């Protein structure tokens, strides 16, 4: 009999849990940020190169896709940052109770939303 493996059970077999979703999101945003470092290196090289290379990069970043990527990068970054601080607290031995895990989980989501919104407000107004 084909048995589903544990992490992949939750869309069909497990009830939705905030805790497991946040854990998976931490990984996914980590991978996304690692991929994003390619764009970061490209941008740094483009600034150093100047001329046509920078013009092409600039056109890409200011295009709708570029702005969407930038927004995605900021949301992923703030999520991974807040969630990472939650992980560091666990490493230090705090917040293992289920009630605490839910509270800090909601706090991470709220902080991510607030930080992302504040940053873009600052970017758009500055």
């Amino acid at each position, binding site marked *: 009999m084909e048995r589903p493996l544990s992490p992949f059970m939750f869309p069909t077999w497990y009830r939705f849990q905030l805790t497991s979703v946040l854990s998976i999101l931490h990984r996914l945003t980590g991978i996304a940020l690692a991929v994003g470092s390619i764009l970061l*290196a490209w941008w*740094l090289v483009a600034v*150093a190169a100047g001329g046509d290379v920078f013009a092409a990069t600039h056109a890409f970043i200011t295009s709708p896709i570029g702005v969407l990527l930038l927004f995605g990068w900021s949301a992923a970054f703030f999520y991974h940052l807040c969630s990472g601080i939650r992980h560091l607290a666990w490493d230090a031995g705090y917040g293992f109770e289920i009630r605490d895990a839910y509270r800090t989980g909601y706090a991470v989501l709220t902080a991510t939303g607030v930080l992302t919104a504040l940053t873009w407000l600052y970017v758009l107004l500055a």
Partner: protein
Amino acid sequence: MANSRSLSNSTALRDESVLRRVRHLGSARDGLQEWRLQRWTALALIPLGLYFAASILRLATSDQVTAAAWLASPVGALLVILFVLAALAHALVGLRSVLVDYVHTRALLVAAELLVRGATVILAGASVLAVLKLFLGR
């Protein structure tokens, strides 16, 4: 045993000959350094990342002269180089732990790890060179 090398650091031949390793029992006896590196870089990335995110989101869409001026300033250049190095070291540990979890073929795992390591080194080198060029050429 305090000064001897850990089991998994000895030769591959010896590794294979130990029955409990062949059967994949017990811990790998190393990995603490990597675990620590991930935590130290995580701590460093809290202030570095906040500084970087605030700067890059403002400057990413700016013109070349403004961006170059930021990377040519001593504080900007230093913090960007530190951010890139800490972020890539942190990413390397994280990506390797993802690979170890999901790639179950030894040859594929080694190939994927090499690819990730190589890409990380190239990205780090390119980023640092770019910032140094702007910093030294100002």
